[in-house]
Structure formats: structure tokens, C-alpha cells
């Protein structure tokens, strides 16, 4: 009973202490890092599931850190929305930790301790951003996640250094804008607690300083989530990051940022303010349309598997931002469901890319030749991920797109529907091209000068386990998406839209 009550704090504390344990354990024996990381992620995942269960049973939880009452103390607020995001984040990071073992041993043999410490700290930051109910606390956790993210990306090959540096510069601008926006809110209201801000702000909706705060926060978060045209740091950073880091960073960081955007818009400002009083929604949906088209078309132009996936992330961010700003019940439902689905889909595809790098040493599309024969299980799981990305029923990706399209019809935003359909078509072309290369083209030896032939066979067990689990989840979540929407997501969609 005690543990159940403390679960909202434990889900942060376990990985935080885990990071220390990994660092100390790694001093004595490098092989201790991996099991410790798995243990920390598992503990955190269990705490997240307990928390979500509690919410579904009894309603939203407010957890007072150190017993200080809000608005003076820091409060963790967990409702259906972030309960769902918590479970998704901790689940994907658990699978990413399982995947990491062989990949890290191959790519970063001398930096294992650092890698796992940063890995666990990044998850701490992401989970913290998700649970916190305090605007300044959010900034601190945002920076914890960002700093560990910079370091993880810069661990990669040589080009990763330059990409990582650009990410540091742009990420810092984003976080600073957010901090500045929070400063404006604090000047006007004298509070940093989100619930408190929500109740004070309605008197100030016509105030210009509040509007400036709104814009600063929105732009800061957009920079963090790589929303077009602020996405320039993302493709290189995620392409050149170590495979195991890419599997954690690519699915989660952008998704948690999208969550933060929705949380600030709905729980600090209100649906009434952002949709009715400000007349920005239409312009933002147009921007999202541009993001979707731009991401999809540039993805089509790549001949590198990882880079192609990173441009797809840019397009997917457009889906979620656009879906939210459609300002309809279905649109927001679709955007929330897509956070979960996209985290899993992107993870599935990045794990696949990680396996390809591990086995063939490259991530060009031509490295995929003949892989269906060599590693049938991996390719089957990849096919499920690809179908989900395209939006083929009954995979999860279909259902969130379905809600997004319903929302667009409700809002009358036909340009958004058109962008969604074009992007699905482009995804279909992209993935069928990959399937064609991997299925029909025989393996040719590109690496001239390589004396010995590289023997490619099925991926190692730890990689396969996480890939198969996530592929199965894509189908299971697709089949149960009606229940997820009815029992969890509908509670967090603002009424009256």
C-alpha cells in the first residue's frame, strides 16, 4: 500500500538512483552496467503502470513532494493523459535498454559506463517532465533531458560531434525561450504552479504580457520538438547518434515535447484561451501541413535509412501539432493517441536501423539488399512497423490517423486531410521501396576491397526481443485502441469543443 501511494515519486527516484548505481557499479565492473540499467528501467516501468492503474481506478493524483502544499511546494499532477504518456515513455525506454546491450558493446566499447548513466538520466528527465505540475520544475527537468541528450548524441561517430554541437546551441535557445516565457507568467501572476496559473490567468487573458509569454513558451517548445521550420538540428543529430542512443532519443524526446505543448496549452492556459480568444489555430494548422509535406518529401529524397527516418519524425511532429490545433475533440484524441503510437512505431523502425547497422556496418538503403532471406524475423517485425507508419489497419498507426482525419473533417480543415493522405502515400512508396530492395535485390558486395565476406544472419536475441515485443504491441494497441480512447484519452480531452 505504501509503495502504491509513493509510486508517482518512485518512478523518478528509481532511475535517478539507478544512474548513481550504474556509475559506481561501473567502476568495479563494466558488465554490471547493463543489468543495473535494465533493473532501473523495469522498476520505473512498474511504478508507472501502478500509477496509471490507480488513476483509472480513482481519478487524477496530486503528489506533494516533501509534503509541501501547492502552490508553494512542488506538486506532481498525474491525470489520464500523462499517466498514459508515462507508461509509454517507461515502456519504450525499458525496451531500448534491452536492445542496447550488443549495440553498445560494438559501437562504444570504452564508454559503456557513461552511456548507461546518461541513458538512465535521460529517462529520468523525460519522466520528470511528464509528471511535474510546476512550470519551473519543468524547465529544470527539460534541461536534464536535453543535456543528457546532447552528450548521448555526441558519443556517436565523428559527424555526430558537429550535429551535437548544433543541437546544444538550438536546444539551449529553445529552453531559454521557455524559461523567459515562464518569467513573464511569474511577473503577471506570482505563481509557478500550473493549476494555480490556470485559475489566475483568466483575468489576464487580454493582457499583452500573457500573450508574449504564450508565444515565447510555444516557440521554445517547438524548437525542442523540431516543429517545421525549427527542425534543422534534428536530422543530423539523430542520424549520427550511436544506434542505441538513437533508439531512445528519436522516439521519446519529440513525443514528450509534444505532450508538454498540449499540457501547457490545456492546463496552464486553457482551451478557451488558445482556441477561441487567440486566432492562431488556423495558421498553426497550415504550418503543420507544411511540416508534414516537407518532412515526407525530404524523406523521399534520402538514400540513407536513418536519415529518411529522421525526416519522417519531422512529418510526424506535424501530424500531432496539427491534430491538436484542429481544436476538435477527435483531433485532440487523435493527437494524444498518436503520441503513444508514434513513440512505438518510431522505436520499431529505429531498432530495425540499429540491427542493420550492427549486422552490416552501414545504414544506406543499399545495405538492406537481400535481408529478407538473411534475417526473416527482423524483417517481419520491420514490415509491421512500416505498415503502421503507412497506416494499414489493424496496426496502431491506422487508428490515430483515423481520429486525426475525423477531427479534420469536424474542423473543416481539408488541407490537413490532404497533407495526411499525401504523407501516407509517400510513406507507402518509401517503405515499399525498402521492402523491394530487401526482398528482391540480391546481396551485392559494395565494399570493394573487403577481403572476407561479411556473414549476415539473424540479429542477436536481446535485439530481437525488443523488436518483436514492440511489433506485437503495434498490433495489440491497434486492436484495443477503442478501449484506450474510451477509458483513458477521453478523460483528458477538454469538453465543449
Amino acid at each position, binding site marked *: 500500500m505504501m509503495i502504491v501511494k509513493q509510486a508517482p515519486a518512485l518512478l523518478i527516484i528509481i532511475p535517478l538512483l539507478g544512474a548513481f548505481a550504474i556509475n559506481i557499479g561501473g567502476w568495479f565492473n563494466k558488465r554490471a552496467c547493463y543489468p543495473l540499467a535494465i533493473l532501473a528501467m523495469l522498476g520505473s516501468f512498474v511504478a508507472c503502470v501502478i500509477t496509471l492503474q490507480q488513476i483509472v481506478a480513482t481519478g487524477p493524483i496530486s503528489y506533494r513532494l516533501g509534503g509541501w502544499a501547492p502552490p508553494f511546494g512542488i506538486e506532481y499532477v498525474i491525470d489520464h493523459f500523462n499517466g498514459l504518456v508515462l507508461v509509454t515513455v517507461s515502456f519504450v525506454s525499458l525496451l531500448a535498454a534491452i536492445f542496447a546491450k550488443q549495440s553498445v558493446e560494438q559501437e562504444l566499447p570504452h564508454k559503456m559506463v557513461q552511456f548507461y548513466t546518461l541513458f538512465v538520466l535521460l529517462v529520468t528527465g523525460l519522466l520528470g517532465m511528464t509528471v511535474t505540475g510546476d512550470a519551473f520544475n519543468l524547465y529544470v527537468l527539460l534541461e536534464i533531458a536535453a543535456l543528457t541528450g546532447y552528450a548521448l548524441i555526441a558519443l556517436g561517430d565523428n559527424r555526430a*560531434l558537429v550535429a551535437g554541437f548544433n543541437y546544444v546551441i538550438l536546444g539551449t535557445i529553445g529552453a531559454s525561450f521557455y524559461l523567459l516565457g515562464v518569467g513573464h507568467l511569474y*511577473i503577471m501572476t506570482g505563481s509557478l504552479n500550473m493549476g494555480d496559473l490556470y485559475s489566475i490567468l483568466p483575468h489576464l487573458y487580454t493582457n499583452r504580457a500573457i500573450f508574449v509569454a504564450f508565444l515565447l513558451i510555444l516557440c521554445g517548445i517547438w524548437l525542442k520538438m523540431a516543429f517545421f521550420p525549427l527542425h534543422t538540428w534534428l536530422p543530423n543529430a539523430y542520424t549520427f547518434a550511436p544506434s542505441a542512443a538513437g533508439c531512445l532519443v528519436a522516439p521519446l524526446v519529440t513525443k514528450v515535447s509534444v505532450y508538454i505543448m498540449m499540457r501547457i496549452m490545456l492546463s496552464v492556459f486553457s482551451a478557451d484561451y488558445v482556441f477561441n480568444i487567440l486566432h492562431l489555430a488556423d495558421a498553426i494548422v497550415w504550418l503543420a501541413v507544411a511540416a508534414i509535406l516537407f518532412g515526407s518529401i525530404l524523406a523521399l529524397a534520402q538514400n540513407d535509412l536513418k536519415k529518411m527516418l529522421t525526416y519522417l519524425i519531422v512529418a510526424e511532429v506535424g501530424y500531432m501539432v496539427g491534430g491538436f490545433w484542429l481544436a476538435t475533440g477527435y483531433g485532440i484524441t487523435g493527437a494524444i493517441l498518436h503520441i503513444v503510437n508514434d513513440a512505438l512505431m518510431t522505436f520499431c523502425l529505429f531498432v530495425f536501423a540499429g540491427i542493420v547497422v550492427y549486422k552490416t556496418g552501414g545504414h544506406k538503403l543499399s545495405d538492406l539488399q537481400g535481408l529478407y532471406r538473411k534475417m526473416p524475423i527482423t524483417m517481419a517485425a520491420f514490415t509491421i512497423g512500416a505498415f503502421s507508419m503507412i497506416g494499414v489497419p489493424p496496426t496502431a498507426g491506422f487508428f490515430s490517423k483515423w481520429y486525426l482525419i475525423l477531427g479534420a473533417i469536424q474542423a473543416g480543415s481539408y488541407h490537413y486531410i490532404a497533407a495526411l493522405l499525401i504523407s501516407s502515400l509517400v510513406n507507402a512508396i518509401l517503405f515499399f521501396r525498402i521492402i523491394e530492395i530487401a526482398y528482391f535485390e540480391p546481396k551485392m558486395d559494395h565494399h570493394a576491397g573487403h577481403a572476407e565476406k561479411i556473414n549476415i544472419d539473424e540479429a542477436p536475441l536481446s535485439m530481437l526481443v525488443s523488436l518483436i515485443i514492440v511489433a506485437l504491441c503495434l498490433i495489440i494497441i491497434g486492436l484495443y485502441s477503442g478501449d484506450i480512447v474510451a477509458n483513458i484519452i477521453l478523460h483528458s480531452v477538454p469538453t465543449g469543443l
Partner: protein
Amino acid sequence: MEYLISHYNYWIYILLMMVGLYAMLAKNNLVKKVIGMSIFQTAIILFYVSISAKRDATIPIIAHGHGHDTAHAVVEAAHYANPLPHVLMLTAIVVSVGTLGVALAICLAIHRRYNTLEEDEIQEQLQ
């Protein structure tokens, strides 16, 4: 003009912020970019600190607060400065030092690999 002078702290922070932003986006040398980043973050720290500055005010500790005659002492909010923005900025300073550390570490690694810190020369080597 009156408006400019009465809000001079905001103008200073905006000026500093733009200097930092310019250096981050326009400078060619990576260390200059890092310096710009530092100025940018410091501008925001100064902004926070300046909003709680107050003339003739002191730290919010009630003098002679112990004992039984506390109840009679009148506490006037105008005599005390709000400590919260300063405390928040302690955290922000820690964060900005952390960011500076990571950025400089990456610069160091870049210099080891490319033997230069000029962005255009690095791009040339990447081609």
C-alpha cells in the same frame, strides 16, 4: 522616454539577449558561439533577478521573530524583497554551467578530430 527609463532593466536584458543570440547564430567560431550562448543565458538570469529587486527592502527574515512578542510585530511586505526569483536563478545558473560544460567538451572533441574550431573549415572537411 519616461517609459524607457522606468523599464531600463528590461531594455538591458533584451539588448544582452540579442547580443548573445547574434553570436550564437552568426559567428563562425564555435567557442564564440558558446560565449554567445553564455551571454544569452545570463541575460535571462539578470531579467529574473531584476524583477524582484526592490529599494529599501531586505531579505525576508523577520528580525526578532523569536519569543512571545512576535504576534505584536507588524510585518510589512514592502520591507522585504521577494527571494523566489533569486532562488530559481541559482538553479538556472547550475543548468547554464552544465550546458557550458557540455558545449565546451564537444568543442574539445571537435578540435581533436578536425584540428580547427572554425565552422566553415569543419564543413569543408566533412564534404
